[in-house]
């Protein structure tokens, strides 16, 4: 079985910490993926207008590239990319009329019918190594670390593309993942809520308020840190913390990690695989203070 990998725009630049930690971890776990030789932006948001098919072309092209590379599956990390690619794939599988129109429009490509399966990285882990298998591979268990699993919107909604491979019910992929790493997942009310998304561009005040609600909820749960899978969530809940603190009373510094960074730490990979310099400073500090990673030689 061949697995193609779709990075998406942000993972090649500002979210290099998400990509590098994820790929290093897959290599350590012996799971082989191949980055698509040629890929384009997925569009970041799935087109919701019934009469607008042109915005489906970009994600469908990526799916075609994966099929043409001989892949059975296409895996991706960014929650938004996952959402767009998975929904575009369903559209091509299930909506005959729209499939025909899109295929007719793309006359250079061989018709696509949804042959490739889109899987989020978390599902790829669950389906290949499995949570028990992952636990056995952990060399630095994250014991004592209380982590708030933040799903946000795109990993779970709409239900047809929800990760976890379960029908309905509360999601558990991130909780099971964290437990396998030796960490303790905590419950918090905002786990499946919106982080504020692109409100920053149109309603910045309301956007900050929204992120403040999420961070307050994390804080009340007693979590040491948040894990997530989306560069937009990381921006709203991480990088924006100083602004949120100025707008919403009582919000403290909360470390924010991509889930793959904790994976790399727990697998005992070299600290450079995590690219923690791209995180907000509280993230690396937490790992050092708790001795999950070794302090650099100069500090010993």
């Amino acid at each position: 079985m061949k697995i193609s990998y779709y990075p998406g725009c942000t993972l090649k630049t500002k979210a290099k910490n998400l990509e590098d930690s994820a790929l290093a971890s897959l290599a350590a776990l012996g799971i082989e993926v191949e980055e698509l030789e040629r890929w384009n932006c997925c569009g970041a948001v799935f087109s919701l207008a019934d009469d607008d098919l042109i915005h489906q072309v970009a994600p469908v092209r990526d799916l075609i590239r994966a099929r043409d590379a001989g892949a059975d599956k296409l895996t991706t990390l960014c929650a938004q990319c996952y959402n767009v690619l998975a929904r575009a794939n369903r559209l091509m599988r299930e909506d005959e009329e729209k499939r025909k129109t899109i295929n007719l429009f793309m006359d250079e490509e061989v018709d696509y019918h949804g042959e490739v399966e889109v899987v989020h990285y978390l599902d790829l882990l669950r389906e290949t190594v499995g949570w028990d298998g992952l636990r056995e591979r952990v060399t630095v268990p994250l014991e004592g670390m209380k982590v708030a699993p933040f799903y946000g919107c795109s990993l779970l909604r709409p239900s047809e593309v929800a990760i976890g491979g379960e029908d309905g019910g509360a999601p558990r992929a991130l909780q099971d993942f964290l437990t396998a790493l030796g960490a303790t997942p905590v419950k918090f009310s905002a786990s499946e809520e919106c982080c504020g998304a692109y409100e920053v561009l149109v309603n910045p005040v309301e956007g900050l308020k929204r992120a403040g609600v999420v961070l307050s909820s994390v804080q009340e749960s007693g979590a040491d840190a948040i894990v997530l899978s989306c560069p937009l969530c990381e921006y709203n809940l991480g990088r924006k913390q100083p602004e949120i603190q100025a707008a919403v009373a009582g919000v403290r510094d909360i470390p924010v990690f991509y889930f793959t960074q904790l994976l790399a730490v727990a697998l005992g990979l070299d600290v450079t695989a995590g690219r923690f310099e791209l995180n907000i400073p509280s993230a690396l500090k937490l790992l050092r203070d708790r001795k999950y990673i070794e302090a650099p030689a100069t500090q010993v």
Partner: protein
Amino acid sequence: MSITILLRALDRAMLERVAEISGQNVYKCMQCGTCTSVCPMSGDMEITPRQAMLLIQHGLVDMVLSSRTPWLCASCHSCQVRCPRGIEVTRVMEALRQIILRENRDMVNPREIPAEAISEMPQIALVAGFRKLTS
């Protein structure tokens, strides 16, 4: 909110546009208010999602279009997955946005975004924002 609905206020053409773009039947809404209760932005909306559905049913699409409601909606799909009538409310909100955007009325001007903000933001914020807020 008290509204007098005159028969001539019913804008059939606009109602049909909402139906065409969203692919949804707004008359399925029974006004239970689940959408408003789960909407993370409803606290900041002068017209809540439930109220928006009611106004649209009565052909008062313009009232919703002149509010900030469609632009406060971040398409988180919370309402849609919980709607007991199976209405994809997110698509109804998208239709409202599209009606405005297709008149070449953009909600964000890239030239007005400060350079520091652009260099700090992840690409995905800009791409998603431009997709949702510009024509």
